[in-house]
């Protein structure tokens, strides 16, 4: 489906069919259906409509009206003549209720509708203009909120003292006053929603396409806040009816002779004992009215809000390929539907005869995890077995949804109660599964500890770091003294490499960087010397240099505590140097396991082979296409009947579909492997594993496309024309401090004098840590304007000329962007057709031409053309990114700006997108400006590279030159920080571990920015250091006739030994 090189002939045939197939199920229809499914909401709507109809036609069913006095029936209870009785004065209550209901509903509807309309206009205006207009309008808004509305209601409707108001009925006055005071809250909400929408990628995408602001507001903003508006109308109607009743009740709203529900209820209070019907009837009607609106509001929220609980669950099942971190969320999402877990594990395991080796510290047998979801039971983990020996490291590798994180949470007993877990987990021989939460607490944090993926959210924001470490100590050592605990906490912080640990105990998590917080997490985990430490993607959220530091800390922690480690990751590089054994998981099951060398050098399962082939290598210069694994992982709602990988496997045959293959020992390796002693037998779940050993090339197995060749490759760079040029571009922000008091304490030089150019047909990459200014650079290019500091030349036109819309439009057409998050970059309310049509319409194309072009684009990026009527959420992440690429290519730009285009994708999908980008560059003669944190991807795809540090380029040149012979110490450190999926190389290579984080811009020294962390600087004699500190090194060419420049005075200097680390195989956790 996604294979670029083999366009499905069936898909092409769809073209003609598509011309007529323009039927899109309307969004309104979907919402309407969802609303109808909610019985409460429908009931609410029915009651509301019935009351409305009643209030208009009810009067025809009685001969009485609200003014006629029936002198023979004064204060009569309900009867055949007066359905609801009469008042003290003999007026028919039924007639009054009909009239009163009508006035109340009228007030509610008018106030609700008009106030939301006013709010929408006001809120959007504020968000759209921003700046001073926003400030003034906000001030007016707050002043209005401040004014007690009631007083004004009273003044306006009081006694009719002011002559002019006598002519207006009191209900009209009340409407006017309620209107004045009812729209502010909604306006504020709309303002903040529109403002956050303006920041969304799909709005930015439209802006970068050159879509005029008016159209952006109309096509993107309004539909996306539309649901909020409708919700607010029902809320506003309710509030207005309540206000009317409340005001009229105490006598300051609607005045007699006008009738409303409030007037009726209020007028009857004194007679509630004598004529109870006069009070209770209008009160009941009011309850029905407000109650029905509340019920409707509930149903509407569910129908509109895609993030409402019910809806979210149903989406969870549809897109198995979520953002990397999302898999972990799966467990916590599903909280409903309690089911009694099967508690017969022990018996079953005895029958199965599975016994753990006696010396294993952690033994897992036949671990199964099921979740109940809206769509059925998700079988997330389907039989995991492993033994972990003391002090050893097991790497569990797999993509999103493979069940690796669920496995770890099941071991820890941290899955939600609704999860059904079965099998056996033994810690030093003691069974953990089936223990109560309380009983598990004895092990958790004590013998069994865990480090989680996202350090930013894993620490409690309101407690100090010290408190949180000490808590871990207190739980398991109640007798320990306060001073002893504090001393231990300091010791732990020192162990994980936090400078001045004693002072830092009192710091709050938000005062720490991500890397530092992950160190604290590790400190907490090892506080009680655990026997088993589970690390779930501990470095995924971190920069590569920080990742290296944290991996180092984990290594130290393991050495200090002697704990066995389970390392869960999607990154084959991260575990290569650390793990003793590897288990590869796919679709909830281990598909291959064994000693690390067996897995990396002799994979026997096509999936493992594919994964290894899909990763670009930073250490390999020779260009070969990546191995794409087509398709998506299976939906775990259905138990696979054959091999779960078969649908994506190029080697699959009919035999593969006949039963799921078991994980069995690989022939040939079992006897001589050194791993046998440790139980890490090489096993694979593939019926063809025996034929896959040795010399089988993964590129042949997976039919990797040939390396594409661009027509520009043969032309020397100097002879190609320039598509983008930056000359001394700067972007400085004022740095403010404090959340409440904002004061400027310095300047952030996010981009500080950047110059480079991109020629036709080349891919230019910018790399660096987060905070180095990569993204700001992209924004400066995309948002070019004449007032910029520095010059941006796009296709020969300078930003200084871009004063008029026409020039801007011409420049915009040369340059398009692909965003990092494929989901955020597509308006969820657009079909693919609408997404792709937007830039074309903007370019003024007519309908037939647009349709034709969209079909071309779909084929170009390897999507089925008949999918154009689908919504983005019906596609996988990789497919969404292809849609994003197609949109960027729609207007035939010369240059495509790629902002981390593959970082949100799984490894196997990433390879397909990288291959596509490579292919498009060659076929269409495109140039790319790529920003990526993954240097392997950069090396794979780019021709030239620039390394940025604190807003400056420290090294720039041809990618092979820079990567092969990095001159700047920072480039060297950055490159050395990248783990390589090659265990032997990882174990022996020398690594530079930079100390600390990217310094705050305030601490930037006068001379070289990098001096504070520089391994060369640290080893220099003081005399030479002086030069680095006082002078800023200029960017100078490395040697004659090579494309490489760097900014360092001492590129050949010795490296400081403290910052160098080598993990000899010998010192690597000897048994």
């Amino acid at each position, binding site marked *: 489906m996604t294979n670029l090189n083999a366009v499905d002939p069936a898909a092409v045939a769809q073209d003609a069919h598509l011309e007529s197939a323009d039927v899109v199920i309307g969004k309104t229809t979907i919402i309407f259906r969802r609303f109808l499914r909610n019985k409460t909401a429908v009931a609410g709507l029915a009651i509301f409509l019935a009351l409305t109809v009643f209030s208009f036609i009810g009067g025809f069913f009685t001969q009485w009206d609200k003014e006629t006095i029936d002198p023979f029936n004064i204060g009569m209870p309900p009867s055949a003549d007066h359905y609801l009785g009469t008042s003290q004065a003999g007026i028919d209550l039924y007639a009054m209720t009909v009239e009163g209901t009508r006035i109340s509903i009228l007030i509610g509807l008018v106030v609700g509708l008009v106030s939301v309309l006013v709010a929408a206009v006001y809120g959007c205006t504020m968000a759209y203009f921003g700046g001073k207009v926003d400030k003034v309008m906000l001030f007016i808004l707050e002043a209005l*909120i401040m*004014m007690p509305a*009631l007083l004004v209601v009273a*003044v306006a409707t009081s006694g009719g003292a*002011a002559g002019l108001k006598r002519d207006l009925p009191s209900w009209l006055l009340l409407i006017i006053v309620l209107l004045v005071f009812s729209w502010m809250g909604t306006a504020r909400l709309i303002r903040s929603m529109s403002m956050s929408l303006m920041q969304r990628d799909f709005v930015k995408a439209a802006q970068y396409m050159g879509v005029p602001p008016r159209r952006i507001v109309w096509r993107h903003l309004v539909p996306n806040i539309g649901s909020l508006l409708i919700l607010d109308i029902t809320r506003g109607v*309710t509030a207005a009816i309540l206000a009317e009743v409340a005001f009229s009740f105490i006598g300051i709203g609607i005045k007699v002779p006008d009738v409303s529900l409030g007037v009726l209820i209020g007028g009857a209070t004194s007679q*509630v004992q004598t004529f109870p019907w006069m009070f209770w009837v209008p009160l009941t009607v009011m309850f029905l009215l407000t109650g029905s609106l509340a019920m409707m509001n509930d149903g509407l929220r569910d129908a509109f809000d895609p993030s409402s609980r019910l809806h979210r669950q149903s989406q969870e099942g549809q897109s198995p390929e979520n953002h990397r971190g999302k898999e972990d969320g799966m467990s916590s999402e599903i909280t409903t539907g309690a089911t009694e877990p099967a508690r017969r594990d022990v018996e079953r395991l005895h029958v199965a005869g599975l016994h753990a080796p006696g010396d294993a510290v952690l033994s897992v047998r036949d671990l199964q995890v099921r979740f109940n979801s809206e769509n059925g039971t998700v079988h997330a983990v389907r039989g995991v077995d492993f033994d972990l020996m003391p002090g050893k490291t097991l790497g569990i590798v797999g993509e999103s949804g493979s069940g690796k994180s669920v496995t770890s949470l099941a071991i820890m007993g941290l899955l939600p109660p609704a999860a059904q877990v079965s099998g056996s987990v033994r810690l030093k021989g003691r069974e953990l599964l089936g223990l109560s939460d309380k009983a598990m607490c004895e092990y958790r944090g004590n013998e069994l500890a865990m480090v989680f993926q996202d350090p930013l*959210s894993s620490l409690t924001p309101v407690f100090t770091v010290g408190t949180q470490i000490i808590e871990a100590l207190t739980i398991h050592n109640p007798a320990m003294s306060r001073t002893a605990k504090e001393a231990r906490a300091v010791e732990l912080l020192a162990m994980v490499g936090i400078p001045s640990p004693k002072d830092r105990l009192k710091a709050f998590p938000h005062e720490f960087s991500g890397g530092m917080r992950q160190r604290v997490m590790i400190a*907490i985990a090892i506080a009680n010397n655990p026997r088993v430490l589970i690390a779930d993607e501990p470095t995924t959220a971190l920069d590569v240099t920080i990742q290296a530091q944290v991996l180092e800390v984990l290594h130290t922690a393991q050495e200090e505590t002697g704990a066995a480690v389970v390392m869960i990751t999607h990154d084959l590089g991260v575990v290569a140097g650390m793990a003793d054994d590897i288990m590869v998981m796919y679709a909830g099951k281990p598909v291959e396991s064994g000693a690390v060398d067996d897995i990396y050098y002799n994979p026997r399962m096509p999936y493992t082979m594919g994964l290894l082939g899909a990763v670009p290598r930073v250490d390999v210069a020779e260009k070969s296409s990546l191995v794409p694994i087509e398709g998506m992982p299976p939906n775990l709602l259905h138990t696979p009947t054959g091999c779960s990988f078969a649908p994506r496997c190029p080697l699959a045959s009919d035999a593969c579909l006949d039963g799921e293959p078991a994980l069995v020992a690989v022939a040939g390796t079992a006897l001589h492997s050194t791993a046998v002693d440790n139980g890490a037998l090489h096993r694979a779940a593939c019926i063809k594993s025996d034929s896959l050993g040795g010399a089988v090339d993964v590129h042949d197995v997976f039919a990797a496309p040939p390396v594409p060749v661009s027509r520009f490759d043969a032309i020397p760079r100097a002879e190609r024309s320039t598509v983008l040029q930056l000359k001394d571009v700067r972007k400085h922000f004022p740095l403010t401090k404090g959340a409440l*008091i904002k004061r400027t304490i310095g300047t952030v030089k996010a981009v500080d004098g950047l110059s480079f150019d991109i020629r036709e047909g080349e891919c230019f990459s910018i790399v660096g840590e987060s905070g180095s200014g990569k993204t700001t650079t992209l924004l400066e290019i995309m948002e070019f304007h004449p007032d910029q500091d520095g010059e941006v030349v796009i296709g020969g036109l300078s930003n200084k000329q871009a004063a008029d819309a026409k020039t801007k439009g011409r420049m915009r057409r040369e340059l398009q962007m692909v965003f990092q998050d494929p989901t955020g970059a597509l308006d969820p309310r657009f079909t693919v057709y609408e997404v792709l049509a937007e830039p074309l319409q903007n370019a003024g194309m007519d309908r037939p031409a647009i349709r034709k072009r969209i079909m071309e684009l779909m084929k170009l990026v390897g999507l089925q053309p008949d999918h154009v009527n689908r919504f983005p959420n019906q596609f996988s992440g990789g497919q969404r990114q292809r849609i994003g690429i197609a949109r960027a290519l729609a207007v035939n730009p010369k240059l495509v700006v790629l902002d981390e285009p593959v970082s949100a994708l799984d490894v196997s999908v990433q390879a397909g997108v990288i291959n596509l980008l490579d292919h498009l560059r060659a076929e269409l003669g495109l140039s790319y400006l790529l920003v990526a944190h993954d240097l392997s991807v950069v090396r794979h795809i780019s021709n030239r590279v620039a390394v940025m540090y604190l807003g400056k380029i420290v090294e720039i040149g041809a990618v092979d030159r820079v990567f092969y012979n990095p001159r700047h110490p920072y480039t060297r450190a950055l490159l050395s920080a990248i783990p390589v999926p090659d265990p032997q190389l990882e174990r022996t290579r020398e690594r530079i571990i930079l100390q600390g984080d990217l310094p705050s811009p305030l601490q930037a020294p006068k001379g070289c920015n990098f001096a504070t962390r520089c391994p060369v600087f640290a080893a220099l004699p003081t005399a030479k250091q002086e030069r680095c500190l006082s002078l800023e090194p200029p960017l100078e060419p490395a040697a004659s006739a090579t494309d490489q420049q760097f900014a360092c005075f001492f590129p050949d200097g010795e490296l400081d030994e403290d910052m160098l680390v080598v993990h000899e195989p010998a010192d690597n956790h000897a048994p």
Partner: protein
Amino acid sequence: MLKYLAKRGITYVVMIFLTTTAGYFLAVSSLKPALLEQERIPRPTPEQVANSMRLKGLDPALSPWERYVDWLTGIVTRWDWGRSPNGAYINAEFGDRVWISTRLFLASIILTLVIGVALGVYSAARQYKFQDRVITSYSYLAYIVPAPIAYFLVQLGAININEAVGDRIFFVTGISTPGIAPGWAQFVDMLAHYAVPTVAITLVGWGAYQIAQRQYLLDNVNADFVRTARAKGLTRNQAIARHALRVSFIPVAQSIAFTIPAIFAGGFFAEKIFAWPGVGSWSIDAISLQDVNAATATLAYGSVIFALGAILADFATTLVDPRVRVQ
């Protein structure tokens, strides 16, 4: 911090000035005390009315602008908020009224906050269970009943109890029985007067806090840091109690801080229904009595209370959330 407070303070002073000014013009152009005077018996001559009004600084012959300038000068130079048509001084009346409002609302607002937050936590811990459904449904019910009607229903209930018992246990209106002997009898009398309004205001008020606290806590129950706390060896409930609760309290604390000054501001509906002559009912009476100065003064007071609440809310945030704390 001081600089920030000063800045916020100035913004609010400007805002209060503007709302009060707007309120004054609205009042002065629509309230005509002279008309009311003329309905007195024996009917005074227009000259007499004009004269008496002029003496109280309420000269109807002056233009609104001239009256505004006079009124403002009085406040700025002498802190004199003017007089009512019946001759009473606003400044003098004010103190008593604020004290009455405070007495009416002090207990009920504290009860509202405590009960609302406690039930919010309780219902969040039992999400979707029977108790949660009952408590949360009640809160939504409270939302669709207009406050004065709810007060009235409570009043009605108290009357029914009185009738059922055959004795007057609760007073449904008023502050105290005049001329009651001090000591135990006075205490009982006070309880009998306080019970109904306090219960009524509390019953109506806690729903909003219950729903907010429940929602914020549920938002945090599955937070990563709760999982970390459990991984340390806390049970789920301990982890929620020690970690999630504290974090979920941040936004609640903000709204509590905002509510606190309302104790002194009273409420229109409650004071009207229970016949306590506090600031709230004064503001309504001021209008029926065509009292420009009293109406404007209560409006200004309401704005000040609002501003205080907003500033207190900021304070509360810095207090409970270290992330916005300023060194």
